[in-house]
Structure formats: C-alpha cells, structure tokens
C-alpha cells in the first residue's frame, strides 16, 4: 500500500523539498550509515509490519531517493519510540529523519493516514487528542487519575481562541 501522490503536486516543489530534506538530514550523517541493521532489529514496528525498515529508509535517503520516500506510506508507520536512535552505533536517527519526511510530505500536499485528521479533529474539538483514560495497575485493577491523586485534565479555557491558533499552526505546516 503506497499513498498516492495528490493529483496536483508540482514536481519542482518535490525537488525543492528533496533538497531541503537532504540539507536538514545531512546533519544527521545519513551518508555515513553502515547499514548494520541495529535500528531495524531493535524497532518494534519492523518486526510486525513488513515494509517498514528504518535501515532501508536511511539507505534511500543516502541515495537521494527522497521523493520516493515522501510518497511511501512506511514513513507514517513509525511509532516514534526512539529505539532506533538509541541503538544506532553512530549519531544517525531514523526517527528524526522520519519526522522531517512526514513534515515535508505534508507540505508537499501528499496524502497522510486518516488517523491524523482524527487527531486534529480531536484537538480542535476538545483541546487534546483523546480523553484521559484509566490506567491498568499491575494487580489487574484500573486506576483513574483521581485515584492516583492526580489533578483533573481540563481543555483550553477559550476553545475559539485555541482553535484559531491551531488552525494557524496547521496552515504554517503546509508551508503556504
């Protein structure tokens, strides 16, 4: 499953984005990756989902295959657990690379998984992605925030102002 390129993407824009990405990722030394596979072997997603492989992702970045990556659904699969960055014997961070790729894909107007719209809608509606949930205790019972002595969670005071700000952020993210 590959996310399709939106119909009206300007190819030059993609090229521009690629350059941007190479520059930003360059600081992460993608080109000195040894392709050892320590990131992917520690990655909990790689194990479960075929086609997601942080090592190969870095290899593609190093070979300049950015546009291909932007269109690849795989970049949205990462759970951002940071194990790849932790394990890498070098200073390379597939996690950071993925974040940049996601941002650029969004700027390029490429499709992204619907769940992000749910997130945004949740934020726009409530001020957070989801309602606080009870946590499972080691003994099997469930504990609420109150039971743990934690303060309650409140949404933004003025929802309209908040929404305005969030919308501005979203617009800025599109790079327009």
């Amino acid at each position, binding site marked *: 499953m590959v996310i399709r390129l939106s119909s009206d993407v300007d190819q030059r824009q993609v090229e521009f984005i690629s350059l941007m990405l190479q520059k930003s990722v360059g600081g992460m030394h993608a080109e000195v990756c*040894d*392709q*050892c*596979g*320590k*990131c*992917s*072997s*520690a*990655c909990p997603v*790689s*194990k479960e989902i075929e086609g997601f*492989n942080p*090592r*190969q992702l870095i290899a593609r970045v190093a070979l300049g295959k950015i546009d291909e990556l932007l269109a690849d659904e795989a970049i949205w699969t990462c759970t951002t657990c940071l*194990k790849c960055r932790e*394990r*890498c*014997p*070098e*200073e390379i961070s597939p996690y950071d690379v993925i974040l940049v790729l996601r941002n650029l894909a969004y700027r390029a107007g490429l499709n992204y998984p619907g769940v992000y719209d749910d997130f945004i809608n949740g934020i726009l509606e409530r001020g957070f992605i989801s309602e606080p949930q009870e946590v499972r205790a080691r003994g099997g019972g469930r504990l609420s925030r109150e039971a743990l002595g934690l303060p309650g969670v409140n949404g933004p005071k003025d929802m309209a102002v908040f929404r305005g700000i969030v919308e501005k952020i979203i617009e800025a993210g599109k790079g327009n």
Partner: protein
Amino acid sequence: MSKPVLVIGGGVAGIQAALDLADRGLKVHLVEKSPSIGGVMAQLDKTFPTMDCSICILAPKMIECSRHPNITIHTLSQVTGVSGGPGDFKVKVIKEPRSVDESKCTGCGICSEKCPAKVKDEWQEGLTERKAIYIIFPQAVPLIACIDRDNCLYFQKGICQICSKVCPAGAIDYEQKAEEIDLDVSSIIVATGFQEYDPSELGEYGYGRFEDVITAKEFERLVCASGPTGGHLNRPSDGKIAHRVAFVQCVGSRSHKKGYPYCSSVCCMYATKEAVLIKEHEPASDVTIFYMDLKVFGQGFQEFVDRAQSHWGVKYVRGRPGEIRRNPVTKDLTIWYENTETGEVAEKEVDLAVLCTTMISRPENKELADVLGLELDEWGFFESLDPLMNPIETNRPGIYICGCCHGPRDIPESVAEASGTAACAAETARRYGQ
C-alpha cells in the same frame, strides 16, 4: 660488544623480537608486567586459519626465550624511567616482589594446592578460581609460583603461612621487596599489546547481567582443553552444553557513539575459528555469526570462511543484532536481529551468545608513553612515526613499536613486525656499537 636491547612486553611480538635479536648475538632484556611471558596468544585455544593450537606453537618459543643465553626475562616488572637516546638509553625497571625465590621454586604446585585463599582466575577470564599463591598457567615461563599479595591471608591478615610450610624447596619469601633495576640499552622495542573492550556499556546485549553472554576471549578459555570446563561448552549459567551459539561482530568497534570507530581487523576470522571449533566439538550445533562486513583480507581467510560455511555449516547473517533478551526460567537467550540482505527482522533463540569485542589500547600506555616520550593516537595506541613510510618507528629515534600496541592486527602481522623492529634495533646497535 654492543649494548643490550630492551623489549617491553612478553607477548608473541615481544618474544619474536627478543629471539631475533638474541639469535644474532645481541643481549636482550625482556620486561613483562605479569608473572609469565606469553601474552594473550597463550590464552587462545586455536589460531585461524590453520587451526594450530595456540599454546602448542607458542610454548616452544617461550621455552626458547627462557633457555636462551642472550635473553634475560624480567617478569612482574615495569619500565618506570628512560633517559638518553639511541645507542645509550638509561632505563629504570621496577620489579614487583614475587614473594617466591625464583632460584629455588621448581613449579611443583604444592603451595597452590594447599593455599586456602581463592581468587577469581584472571587468566581463565574469571570463569574459574585460582589460589592466592599460584602459577599463572601450566605452561608459564618461568614456571614459578607467585603470591598475589592483595589476596594472601598472610599479607592481608598476618595469618596462614601454609605455603611456606608445605613448600618442599623452601622457596617462599614473604620478605621480598620491590627491586629497582638499572639497564643500559642501545634501543627499545615496545610490544605491550592490547586489551579487550568491556561490552558492559552496551546494555542492549546484557553482558554482565546475563551469564551466558560472554566475550570472545572468555569463549577461548571455555572452548580450550586446558580451560575451566576442559574444553566442553558448558555455558556459565547452568552448565548446559551450548548447542546453539550466536556470535555478534563489531561489539565496541565501528561505532562513534559507544566504543571505537575502527574495525578491529581480527574478529571476523576469530569468530569463524570459534564457530568451527564448536562444530568440531559437535557438528550438529547451530552456529550463527552476525556480521557487518566479512573481513577476509588475509591470506587464506576467504577460503577459511568458505570452508566454515560449506563444510561445517556455520551460518553467516549480515546484520548487527539490536538486542539480546533472556528467558529467566530456561536462561536461553533471544537475539533480535535483521538479516539486512533480505530485510527480514527476526528473533533467534540460542544457548550462548559470544560478543566479538574489539581490541583496545592498554590504559597503562599513557604512563608508559610519558616515560618513553612517545606519542599516543586518539585511541591510546602508540603512534607510528609515519603510518605509511615508517610504520614501526616512533617519534623518538631508537624506540620501535610492534604488534597490537599500535593498533589491532593478527598474529603473523605482529610477528613480522616484531622481526622488523629487531632489524631496526640491530641497525641501531651497529650504528652506535663499539
């Protein structure tokens, strides 16, 4: 008559340099820090790619050193001061007390047998225990007992003295003092070798927490017939025979973040050798080597790897494992890895995991470099005068380096270099002789 030559370090490189010089008629002082010459090579089981038994080929050279009329071996000794220049170095050596009279001890071993104090046996990589009075290993040269004062009941608590009572030769001498020896030499050869990287800082591999995650050097003792298990692959945790073994390459090497950026040169081959040793013990064993690049650059190496694969069925998987986990009940280990050539991310259950750790410089190099006036590189290895044109000379004329004290290398390269430094020393002796 030319002045003698000082060789610092009694491993295979130091031994070769000493023998080359002594054979040509020059006097040699061979200074060794530990109670016996032999170095790391004496601890190895076999050597790649010929599978020669390491101590079997080294022991005759060690014996030759001890019998050679031109070689004086100073064990338990360290160089603490050097002045002068080529042709005329004045050297101070401190010899730690052995607490045993070298001229009387016959190496019979009765003292160790009776000694009540047990200590971790460093020579067996801590896999077993030795006594406070001990002979470091059966083929030690000189074959003389030594008291480890830090662990001796007499030295620590003023009690015991059993060794003195049982020694048939009356060789025990608690009163021995450190001795200062002055040497006058024409040149100095440094051959202090290397040590193994401690992989404890790589938490993901569990070394230090999981008993069955061991280093390659520990494995050498485990698989050696003269080791703590008599050569049987009883894993440390529960003594179960290890039939499924994984080797992890590049532990502490090829990494800028943790460990060292350089390739340690020998691990791919020693891992292959160790894998073959397991297969020789039990051909049905399941042995996998997780590697990054197979370094087969030496003579006969590729053929050796080919044979390990085709004849012995050793498996090679390209990929650096991300984690090692342990089942607390069975003690079995699970290796998380990616086969980078297929992109498959998988787990492998093994009985024993061997970490092929990189060669690193000795911490005492720093002090020795100050004494000798030599430069160290970024990683603590002695620096060549020029890595291309003068690989075995140093910034100080008359002082030469060979073997792993200036970077990882294998035995033949160390031996060839040792002969090279012997040539340099012979040239110097002639130039400044008479």
